[in-house]
């Protein structure tokens, strides 16, 4: 992908997948996210950028209710996926997380075989009726994560024995195996070298065909390379949200401009 093309990116209005309204997040007394309103489109890569501690990861974790696991964390406001409020009492976070997959900052494969890593999700959700179907899902997921050719001969080997980049792609395969609609990625490349990063970025671009991808990144180059939409967070506020090309070339807010040009952060 070429930064020169950034302005000519496809900016057609697409269906809105996730819509957040007036989202507030508190960690105890700490007001971590303030009044965030954002509409995330389907089949689009949306990047969250901003300095450390600005709340972008926190907001990402709100989208699949991973913050529920933190006792002192409190979320207010509405977040809807396909118009359904995910913080509704009737919503089971377990079911939600099957729909909204997540890839973490540090590759965290289960200390089990590669096959078991990928098949775990489909197995607990009953997506495969028998071993043959499961095999198909595992292969598809590994192919989609562009790691099939590297591991197809050693599916029984432990996932923790792979290299860092391979582990992260394995985690992506694991996330797509449950056939989610949204894929959340929390700095997926921060522990990877440039070659592995390039592979994962290529992968993200391919995943856009099927999913709505939300990626948190510290690297503005990465946001520019992979995303169509970018949101800039600062001190818990969503400062600016728009086309990636616009944000990087012609930001409205002076804070965004300062961050992009390296003056704050």
């Amino acid at each position: 992908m070429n930064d020169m093309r950034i302005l000519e990116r496809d900016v057609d209005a697409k269906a809105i997948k996730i819509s957040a309204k007036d989202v507030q997040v508190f960690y105890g007394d700490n007001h971590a996210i303030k009044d965030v309103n954002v509409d995330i489109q389907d089949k689009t890569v949306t990047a969250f950028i901003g300095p450390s501690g600005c709340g972008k990861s926190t907001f990402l974790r709100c989208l699949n209710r991973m913050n529920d696991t933190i006792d002192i964390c409190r979320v207010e406001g509405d977040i809807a996926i396909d118009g359904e409020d995910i913080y509704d009492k009737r919503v089971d976070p377990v079911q939600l997380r099957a729909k909204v997959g997540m890839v973490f900052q540090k590759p965290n494969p289960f200390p089990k075989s590669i096959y078991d890593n990928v098949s775990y999700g489909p197995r607990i959700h009953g997506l495969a009726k028998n071993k043959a179907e499961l095999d198909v899902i595992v292969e598809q997921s590994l192919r989609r994560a562009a790691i099939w050719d590297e591991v197809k001969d050693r599916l029984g080997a432990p996932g923790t024995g792979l290299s860092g980049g391979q582990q992260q792609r394995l985690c992506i395969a694991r996330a797509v195996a449950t056939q989610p609609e949204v894929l959340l990625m929390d700095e997926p490349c921060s522990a990877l070298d440039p070659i592995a990063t390039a592979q994962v970025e290529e992968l993200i671009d391919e995943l856009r065909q099927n999913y709505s991808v939300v990626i948190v990144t510290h690297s503005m180059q990465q946001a520019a390379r992979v995303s169509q939409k970018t949101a800039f967070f600062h001190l818990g506020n969503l400062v600016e949200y728009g086309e990636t090309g616009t944000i990087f070339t012609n930001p409205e807010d002076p804070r965004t401009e300062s961050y992009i040009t390296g003056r704050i952060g």
Partner: protein
Amino acid sequence: MTDASIPAMPAAPEKGNRVSLMEPDARTQKRKAAERRFRSYGIAGIATGIFFLIVLLISIVSSGAGAFQQTFINASVYLDPVKLDKNGNRDIADLRKVSTFGYTPLIQQAVFDKLEQNNIETPLEKRGDMKALISASAAAQVRDVVLENPDLIGETVDFRILASSRVDGYLKGRVLREDVARDKNIDSEHLDLVDALVPLGIVEKTFNIDFITGADASESRAESAGIGVAMIGSFFMMMVVLVLSLPIGVAASIYLEEFAPKNRWTDLIEVNIANLAAVPSIVFGILGLAVFIQFMHLPQSAPLVGGLVLTLMTLPTIIISTRASLKAVPPSIRDAALGVGASKMQSVFHHVLPLAAPGILTGTIIGLAQALGETAPLLLIGMVGFIASNAPDGVASGLLDPNSAMPAQIYEWAKRADPAFYERAWGGIIILLGFLISMNTLAVILRRRFERRW
């Protein structure tokens, strides 16, 4: 920033004072000396520890090894039908009526005959004088054989009968000739006799399997006391402890660590569990006495009650070690499981628990080893101070019949007057230590085998 804000450096040493790198300056030498001193303290500490460990092991083995050997007298006992079966019909009920008193003269006669056969000169002229050589258990030993095979009556049968504890002690160097003058149980004529019989193979010292498999015996029969029944008592207690404390402990720690909200109540519970681990074991003993025996009317001295008390004692150990190993599982694994849509329980049972299992296992084994060596609570629930003479038959009897446990048995022996029991106490310690060492080794092996790195 300007240079003015930096405090002035102390004057640099002058060029002429430069110390060569080849010879260390005074400061370096001082630091090196301090380091050497610290290392020598450490080595001295470890050496002291190893020295005491060696002294302990040597004293245990040298004092206890004798318990694994026992002196026997090989004699051919004529099972006189006139004495043993007056009616001559070999009726088992009639045979039972003859107590051990009926057998004693026969055995004494058998030993006396051996002297005559081998032309041994002795001032002891009566068969009754042989009493001091023979264990009080010998008659029971012969009687048991006869009751099992009544057909033997009328025949002369070779027996390996137990020698008295004084004879045993003499051969093991515990009873000395100088001491015999003050001893009412044996005199120097008998010791002369023993000296004469040993080369003939009539009196011999051999490995004593009965010490490991046998039951305890009364105060006057140290030579026939064994730790086997107490071992069975310990085994049943350990089963109770394992069956109760492992599931309860693991379930409690999983709940506290993974599910329970962090609030004042769980903090309180946590503090109390930590404190319970430090409560003296005798407190658990008296609690067991009050609750299990006086309130719930469970049988006294039963391994079931012992196991319940030891379960209470082991639970905190297991909970603390289980929680520690659950905590050691990286949170990223939990995130990963939740991230693919596993429920909390699935994430715990599919991913966290298998990773914590080696730690839980070692904690459990170490808790069990602790419980195996525990004596104080058993004193209070009556698992000590009587003679567990029969091995239990079946699980129910093993759990509910009065029994002792290994450490309680050792304590009991150590209390008794006869020095032969002192030797057996040390022998019991060797067996107990053997169990503890093998359990701890198992714990280490399990940890090594199943420990996973990520």
